[in-house]
C-alpha cells in the first residue's frame, strides 16, 4: 500500500506537470483564498480572545439604570458606567467576594533627576481587590491592602516598563515617584501584564492599548481631584453644583465597577442585591422608575461593549466568502482535469483497479495541490501579516503575528479545503464506466 501511495504521488506529479498553467492556477487560487482567510482570522482571533480564560466566568460587571427609561430614545442600552454616588454605595456594601471601582487617569511624571524631562503616563485608579481579582503578576512587592484604601494612602503600583525607565529594572519597592504634584510610595512592580482586550476599560477605550504605567488607590485619586481620563457622560438639563464635589454628586457616569462572584449562588444573590438597591433608590425618591439592574460576566461584557470592531468581522466574513469562490473554482478545474483522463481511468479499471484505488490516486493528486497551495498560502499570509497595519488599527496590527499554530492551521486549512474540493471530481472519476470508455476509443 505504501509503495502504491508513493507511486500515486509520482503519477500525480506527472499529471500536474502535464498542465502547468492549470496546476499553477489551482495552487494560486487555494493559496490566495487561504491566505486572505488566515490573515483576517488571525486579526479576529486576536481581538476576540478571552483576556483571562481561567477567571472570566467569575468576574462580573454590574450596571444599574441611573438615568431612567426616558433617556433611552429607541431601545438604547442603559449607561455603561456608574455615577460616583452609586459606585461608592456598592463598594461600601461589599456584597461580592471582591470588588473594585476603576477609572482611567493621566498624569505627568516628574523624574527625581531634574535633568530629565517630565513625561506623560497613563494608569488607573482602583481598589486593593483589583490585583487579586484580575490575577496581576508582580516582579517586586505586590498590591496594597484594604486598610490602605480606607486610609487613602499615597501608594502606587507601577509597570515593569516604567520601572525599567525610572530605576533601570531594579527593585524599586519603597522608593517614590512624583505624579504631578504628589509623591507616591511604590509598593509593587507588575510583571509584563496587559490582558487584551482590556476588559476592565473597554467602556472607555478600544481595549488594545499599551499596558498601563501605574495603578493607584481610587480613594487617593478622588482626594487629589484627579479627573477621569476616560468617558464622562451626563444626562439632563438640571445642571449640577459647581466644582469637584458638585461633579461627584452629579448624575454623570464615569466609574467602572467589577465584582468577583465565585459561584452561581453568589451571582444570584448579587443580582438580587442590585435589584434591591435600585428599589431602595426608587423608594428614596432618587430614581423615579422601576429598578433595572444588569450583570454581565466578562465575555458577555466584551460582547455588550462590541469590542470586536465591525471591520474585523466583516473582513473575516468576506475573506471566507472569497475562499469559498476559490474552492468552487478548484472543484471546476479538478473536475476538468480528472475527466480529461476518463479514458486512462477506464483502462485502469478494466485492468482490475478497484474504485478505492482510483479514489486514493486522485485524492493523492489533489492533496499535492493542497500542500502546494498551503505553502503559497503561508507565504501570502506572511505578506498579509506585514500589511495588517494598512487595514486595521496599529494597536491591533501589533497584536497579530505569525505563530506555529497559525502556520499549522494555514497548511491544514489548504489541505483540507483542497481534498474536500476534490471529493466530487474524484467521485466522478471513480464512477467512470470502463466499458463505455473503452468502446469510445
Amino acid at each position, binding site marked *: 500500500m505504501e509503495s502504491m501511495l508513493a507511486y500515486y504521488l509520482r503519477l500525480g506529479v506527472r499529471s500536474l506537470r502535464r498542465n502547468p498553467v492549470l496546476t499553477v492556477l489551482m495552487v494560486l487560487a487555494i493559496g490566495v483564498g487561504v491566505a486572505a482567510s488566515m490573515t483576517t482570522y488571525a486579526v479576529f482571533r486576536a481581538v476576540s480572545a478571552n483576556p483571562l480564560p481561567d477567571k472570566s466566568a467569575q468576574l462580573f460587571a454590574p450596571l444599574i439604570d441611573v438615568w431612567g427609561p426616558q433617556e433611552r430614545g429607541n431601545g438604547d442600552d442603559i449607561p455603561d458606567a456608574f455615577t460616583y454616588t452609586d459606585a461608592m454605595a456598592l463598594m461600601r456594601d461589599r456584597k461580592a467576594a471582591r470588588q473594585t471601582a476603576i477609572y482611567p487617569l493621566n498624569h505627568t511624571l516628574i523624574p527625581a533627576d531634574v535633568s530629565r524631562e517630565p513625561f506623560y503616563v497613563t494608569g488607573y485608579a482602583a481598589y486593593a481587590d483589583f490585583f487579586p481579582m484580575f490575577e496581576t503578576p508582580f516582579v517586586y512587592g505586590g498590591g496594597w491592602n484594604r486598610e490602605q484604601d480606607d486610609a487613602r494612602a499615597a501608594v502606587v503600583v507601577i509597570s515593569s516598563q516604567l520601572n525599567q525607565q525610572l530605576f533601570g529594572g531594579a527593585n524599586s519597592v519603597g522608593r517614590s515617584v512624583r505624579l504631578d504634584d504628589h509623591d507616591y510610595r511604590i509598593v509593587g512592580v507588575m510583571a509584563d501584564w496587559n490582558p487584551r482586550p482590556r476588559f476592565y476599560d473597554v467602556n472607555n477605550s478600544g481595549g488594545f492599548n499599551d499596558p498601563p504605567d501605574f495603578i493607584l488607590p481610587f480613594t487617593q485619586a478622588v482626594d487629589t481631584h484627579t479627573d477621569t481620563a476616560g468617558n464622562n457622560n451626563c444626562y*439632563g438639563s438640571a445642571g449640577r453644583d459647581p466644582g469637584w464635589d458638585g461633579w461627584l454628586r452629579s448624575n454623570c457616569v464615569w466609574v467602572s465597577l467589577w465584582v468577583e462572584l465565585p459561584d452561581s449562588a453568589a451571582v444570584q444573590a448579587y443580582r438580587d442585591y442590585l435589584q434591591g438597591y435600585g428599589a431602595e433608590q426608587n423608594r428614596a425618591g432618587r430614581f423615579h422608575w422601576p429598578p433595572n439592574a444588569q450583570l454581565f460576566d466578562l465575555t458577555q461584557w466584551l460582547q455588550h461593549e462590541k469590542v470586536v470592531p465591525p*471591520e474585523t468581522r466583516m473582513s473575516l466574513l468576506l475573506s471566507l466568502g472569497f475562499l469559498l469562490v476559490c474552492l468552487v473554482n478548484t472543484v471546476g478545474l479538478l473536475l476538468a482535469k480528472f475527466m480529461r483522463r476518463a479514458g486512462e481511468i477506464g483502462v485502469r479499471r478494466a485492468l482490475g483497479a478497484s474504485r478505492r484505488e482510483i479514489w486514493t490516486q486522485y485524492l493523492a493528486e489533489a492533496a499535492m495541490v493542497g500542500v502546494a497551495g498551503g505553502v503559497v498560502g503561508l507565504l501570502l499570509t506572511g505578506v498579509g501579516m506585514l500589511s495588517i497595519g494598512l487595514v*486595521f488599527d496599529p494597536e491591533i496590527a501589533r497584536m497579530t503575528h505569525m505563530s506555529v499554530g497559525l502556520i499549522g492551521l494555514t497548511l491544514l486549512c489548504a489541505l483540507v479545503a483542497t481534498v474536500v474540493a476534490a471529493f466530487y471530481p474524484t467521485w466522478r472519476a471513480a464512477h467512470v464506466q470502463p466499458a463505455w470508455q473503452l468502446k469510445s476509443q
Partner: protein
Amino acid sequence: MQIQPILAALRRHKAGTILIALQIALTLAIVCNALFIINQRLSHLSEQSGVDEPNLFVIRNMWGEQYSTQQAVQHIEEDVAALRQVPGVQDVSAVNNYPFGPSTWDNFITMKPDQLSPTTDASFYTGDENFVRTLGLKLIAGRDFRADEIQDKGLRDSIVPAVAIISKAMADKLYPNGDALGKTFYAMTSSPITIVGIVDVLHRQDVSSWSASYLGESMITPIRIAMPWGLTYVVRAKPGQLEEAMHAAPKALFAENRMRMIDPKDGLLSFAEVRHRAFEKDRGMAILMGIICVVLLAITGAGIVGLTSFWVGQRRRQIGVRRALGATHRDILHYFMTENLLISLGGVAIGVLLTFGLNLWLVTRFTLNLLPVTYVLAGIVILLLLGQGAVLAPALRASRVPPIEATRPA
C-alpha cells in the same frame, strides 16, 4: 445563433456548468457588496471639515505640572502671545478639540429645559474670540464672539454659556424655517443659549458611525478651557508657510516655558495628518475590499479560461465535424461565446439573489445601508464582460480547429 443545441450540449456538462454559474453568482454577490462598502468608506474621506485645512496645524500641549485655573489662564495667555510672535503664524486659538480630533465632547440639545428626549446631539466646541477666524470658518449669519464674552472654565466648573455660534446643519435641524439666528436652545443647561452666529460648515469632532445622523451638527461656545493638565492650540499659518510655522511653534513654546509636554507621536499635527489619521480605518477597509474584488475577479476569470479550455479540448472532434460540415471560424467562436453568455446569465440570476441576501445580512449585522440597484447592474455588466473576455482565448483556439480533426480519434 441557435440556442437550443447549446443548451442540449450544456446538459451533458451539468457539473461544469453549475460550477461556473455558482462561481459567477458568488463573485457577483461579494464584488457588489465590496464595491458598495468601498464607496461608503470613500465617501467618508471627502467629508468637509469646514476649516482652512491647508494652513492649519494643532498643538496638543500638556503642562509639566498641575495648574490652578488662574495659573492655567495666565500660561495660556503667555503661550498664545508667544505663538503669535512666531514668523509665519497668522492666528492662534485655545480650544477643547477640533474636527476629526482625538476625543469627543457632545451634548444633547433640547428646545425646552424640561424636555425629556433630546431634539438632536451637537458636537461641543469651546473657543475664544479667535476661534472662527483661526479655523477659517465661514460666518454666514450673525456675528463672531466678543472678547468680553469669553469665560474661563477650570476643572469640573459648570459654566453655562449665554451665547453660541452653531453650524448651519444644526441651525436647520433646530429651526427648519431658516430663522435660527437670535433664537435659543438648551445644551443640557439650565438656562437657554442664544444663537448669535451661524457658520456654514463645521464638522463634528468625531467620525463615528453612531453620530452619522447628526453629521455636521456642531456648536461653539465662548469658553476658554483652563484645565490643570493642558489644552490644545489650533494655529493657522500664513499661506505657504505651514512647514516653517510648524517647525518654529513648539520651539517658541518651550523657550517661553519648559514645563510642558508635546507628545512626539501626536502632539504636533498638520491638519492633513489629522484628516489622514481620522479616516485610516475607512481607507484600510476600502483597500482591503478593493484587493478582494480584483483578486476575486481574476480568479473567476482564470477559472472560466481553464474550464472552457478543457471543454474545447474535449470537443475537438465535434468541432472538426462541424467545420467539415461547413461551419465557419466565426460560427465556432460564436458558439463558445454564446455558451458562456448563457452560463453567465444563469450565474448572475442566482447571483442577484445572493447579492441582496448578503447585503440584507450585512445591513442587520453591521448597519450597512441597503445596496442601490446601480451597484448590482454594474456588477452584472462587469461579470458578463469578464466571462466574455475570459472565454475569448479558448474560443479563438476552438475556431482554429481544422476540419481534419473530424477524422482523428478522440
